[in-house]
């Protein structure tokens, strides 16, 4: 069991994508994940005008919304593919929501979550995700 567990963790150090267009990336120790939205999603949403961030210490279940992105076109939930506790949020996005369009997979991450279980649902590698978005 323990061996399988660490294999799963190791595999997740690479950035992974959800079908809902979020991404997660594990910290070096595998205990915390950074979550954001994909470049594809940021581009498709258009100019982001508001980002609703979760509060630090919020407990979130896998598949639950931890925030929202508002663009001219729509309001969209940000769903977390992992359960855990929010340890940090990217406050800069509150001041400059437009930054989410500039660097959604880098500086404009949404939140960091201390994981309490394994990720659920389908997670894809960069290549798989690119193929997924091209199909869509």
């Amino acid at each position, binding site marked *: 069991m323990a061996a399988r567990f660490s294999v799963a963790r190791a595999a997740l150090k690479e950035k992974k994508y959800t*079908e*809902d*267009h*979020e991404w997660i990336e594990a910290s070096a120790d595998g205990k915390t994940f950074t979550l954001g*939205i994909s470049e*594809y*999603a940021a581009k*498709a*949403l*258009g*100019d982001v*005008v*508001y980002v*609703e961030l*979760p509060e630090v210490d*919020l*407990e*979130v*279940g896998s598949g*639950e*919304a*931890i*925030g*929202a*992105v*508002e*663009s*001219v*076109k*729509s*309001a*969209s*939930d*940000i*769903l977390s593919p992992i*359960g855990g506790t929010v340890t940090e949020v990217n406050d800069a996005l509150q001041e400059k929501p437009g930054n989410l369009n500039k660097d959604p997979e880098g500086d404009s991450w949404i939140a960091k979550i201390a994981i309490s279980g394994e990720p659920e649902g389908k997670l894809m590698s960069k290549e798989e995700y690119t193929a997924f978005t091209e199909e*869509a």
Partner: protein
Amino acid sequence: MASKRAAQVLRPAVNGFKASPVSLKHAVKPQITTRNLSIRAARPRQLNRVSTTAVRFASSAVPTSEGQLGRTGLYELHAKYGAKFVPFGGYEMPVQYSDLSIVDSHNWTREKASLFDVGHMVQHDFSGPGAQAFLERLTPSSLSSLSENHSTLSTLLHPETGGIVDDTVITRLPNSFYVVTNAGCREKDLAYLTEQLEAWRKENPDQTVEWKLRDNQGLVALQGPLAATILERVLNEKSASALSTLYFGQCMPGTIKGTDVEVLISRGGYTGEDGFEISIPPSATEAVTQYLLDSAKDELRLAGLGARDTLRLEAGMCLYGHDLDDTTTPVEAGLSWIIGKDRRANGGFHGDSVILQQLKKKSEGGGVTRRRVGLIIEGSPAREGAEIVNENGEKIGNITSGCPSPTAKKNISMGYIKDGMHKSGTEVQVVVRGKKRKATVTKMPFIGSKYYKALAPEPK
């Protein structure tokens, strides 16, 4: 537990989206995710399923009662210009085009000019000796004072209640009343008009009314500060020179340059900009549209439903099915100005007892319980369905349309609020994703209108 609570707080997320939260997955699809434009709010997810590769049928066709989506005569032209299609009002309509984002298209319209296909709307002609009296029974408009080649915004009303069946523009042409109604209300309006006309014929056999639909007739809206300059280029000399004295709310026949194609040009629109709505015979719709685009390559772009919605909201205009519905009267909707003077005095239209009572002063038992208002919201935009609450957290209204305004750079919304709270400057709160946001009741339009009006006579 905390997580559960979080879910409850964040799910309504999408307050404006009723019970179904929208994940990024759905938002990134080419659909009207704000749902502001989808008349049947209960079926947003289905919007995904309509692929543009659906079985092709005649290049233009009205929707069928079996739910087959219609296409306007410009469908292929849209596709050529990279349109993303969505089902709207029973038609596959462009929501945006590949050259411009919704915001860019919105700004383009305010700075230059855009061309919208509105051929999905329903164009009617009512003629005959009873036409005026018939329409005056259905609407609160004073058609007796409507001059030839002039238009007025109006509403079709339900008998007794005075609720709005649909909003419409009525134009007096030399030989008929030309009436344009919403695509999303097509079936309901046709059933209503059929029933009303039957009743009319029974009661007034000598005052005949003839009702015709201009099916497949093209209708495009040319909107923006450069609209007149662009339109002049495609008209023959006589028609082009007549544009300078065609004012907001007026219409004229026009002839396309080098052809004998005659179009009906109405000055007005749904953006708050100067502009025209041009009704074109089916056989010429595509050619005239292409001619317009080719005549103004650097100035004119096609625009879709996405920009149309943000533009009309900034202009403070209602979208039926959202800001107006069967239960709303013109007085509640802030449309009392469409009720003609003689109609106020004499009534004689559907729901007149309700509506005329609402027009009276409060001291005389008049007034309404809710009113349509504009709101500016701090922080997050507030969309359809969001609740308006007072300082004690009690619900005092709800949002019916909302978006971040590309021009005003503020979050603008339209909604209904309890009478008494409707005055401009009143501070209230709007609940978005479970959190209260500061909001201020604001006069509409949110941006100044730029209609082409006759100059007031010089003071002597």
